[in-house]
């Protein structure tokens, strides 16, 4: 079966989730990945949306975190202060998915401003949303982002969410309780932090993608693992489940 780079990325993100985990989900690719995991290998995955729906079981992809289906299928619906204070901040949630406009080699993320200075930016991005606390407090973080020179930069223009700061000891020094980003999943492969330096290193490639192509599309001198894993292509079952879900977004439009 043929598949797109985005489908490979979504499947790769879904595989990173284990059954029974609690997962803090945003709309877009993370929501597709989490719902794909729940439909395939992780039926007991607990989906938590920042709109306060805990244990949502959507049977189609929601258009936004305000979709009534999330509230109607949830184990509990709580207020926004409660979702952040009682559920996210204490470290109750296993894994948080984040996107990024810019990311650096220590997994620090920018979704605030690009270019110029803060008061007079070239591009104004949406801002922080729930990301800083997800990055701080989820037991671990998975970042999903397309890899290119604009997104993979030597230095982010603004630190919206902290990865490993400037290296080894920063998270502990800053009092950030979660372990930080464990994977960056891109449209080319997977990066993981070096166990010593915490610098993100290419450890996996999708079929047909070369390490030099990944290096070429990175704005810093990308370290490459000695023998990067070749990640298996999406199975027909994974693709079928994903496409079935994506078809449902059209249904969400009409409801």
């Amino acid at each position, binding site marked *: 079966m043929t598949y797109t780079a985005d489908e490979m990325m979504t499947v790769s993100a879904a595989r990173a989730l284990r059954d029974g985990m609690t997962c803090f989900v945003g709309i877009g690719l993370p929501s597709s990945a989490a719902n794909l995991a729940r439909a395939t290998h992780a039926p007991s995955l607990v989906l938590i949306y920042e709109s*306060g729906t805990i244990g949502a079981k959507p049977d189609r992809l929601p258009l*936004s975190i305000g*979709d009534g289906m*999330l*509230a*109607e299928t949830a184990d509990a619906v709580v*207020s926004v202060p409660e979702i952040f204070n009682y559920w996210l901040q204490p470290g109750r949630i296993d894994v948080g998915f984040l996107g990024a406009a810019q990311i650096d080699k220590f997994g620090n993320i920018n979704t605030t401003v690009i270019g110029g200075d803060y008061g007079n930016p070239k591009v*104004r991005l949406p801002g922080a949303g*729930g990301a800083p606390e997800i990055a701080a407090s989820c037991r671990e973080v998975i970042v999903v982002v397309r890899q290119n020179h604009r997104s993979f930069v030597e230095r982010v223009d603004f630190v919206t969410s902290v990865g490993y700061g400037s290296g080894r000891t920063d998270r502990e020094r800053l009092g*950030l309780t979660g372990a930080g980003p464990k994977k960056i999943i891109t449209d080319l492969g997977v990066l993981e932090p070096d166990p010593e330096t915490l610098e993100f290193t290419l450890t996996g490639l999708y079929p047909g993608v070369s390490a030099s192509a990944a290096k070429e599309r990175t704005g810093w001198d990308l370290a490459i693992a000695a023998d990067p894993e070749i990640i298996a292509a999406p199975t027909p079952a994974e693709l079928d489940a994903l496409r079935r879900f994506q078809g449902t977004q059209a249904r969400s439009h009409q409801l």
Partner: protein
Amino acid sequence: MAEIVSLAEAVERAIHDGDAVAMEGFTHLIPFAAGQEVIRQRRRNLTLIRMTPDLIYDQLIGAGCARKLIFSWGGNPGVGSLHRFRDAVEHSWPVPLEIEEHSHAGMANRYVAGASGIPFAVLRGYNGTGLETLNGDDGSVPTIKPISCPFTGETLTAVSALRPDVAVIHAQRADRTGNVQLWGITGVQKEAVLASARSVVTVEEIVDELDPRPGAVVLPGWTVTFVAQARDGAHPSYALGYSVRDNDYYVAWDAIARDRETFTRWLDELYAGRS
């Protein structure tokens, strides 16, 4: 006790030029009808507060109602950018827009502090982020400061309370004495109303009696200033039990807002009562 009035009268009496106004609704029950009435009444120099400024704030900003925005995530959810918001920040059109930004947790806790009658809230997630540097050093009013826990010495972040002049929300129902009931995703509406000096609540319907609903938030009528019926008042957003998101509107907005001319035509239609 809340006064039950028309939407036009509620906006006329509750919201004045220069006010700090929080229109809340966390992607569900967004008070679109009330926001558009504010545009029609041509309020100016507002400080607009909202965790997720989306289309209604893009419309208010493009119409020139705001001089400042306090927020945590500004986008067209599931679609893309807010072009009027970006034009105001990047090019000061139609007027310059001052920014005060936080994370969702920061904003939610600022409302909690305001509703609780204390001057600040405390959280952990800002440590090491760029948000920490937005602490008033540029001459703006500081709203983010490090704080040391008096018991453990741990360094956390204090964020100042939000105390809007007016909260504006949309709910499913009210009774004839102005008790308000909302359910489903209830967001931060209760905290926004209790943090504010005045409030305007639009509702889908006004009923004789509010029968209990699982997970509902009830705001007693004496905590609310004005209740106005506005059927479909959350359109194009969701109102659980009444209507679902009109996604075509969100997609169409992207094209309207992208360009100053198409936006201005949309605004003229709104003033003329045709949109």
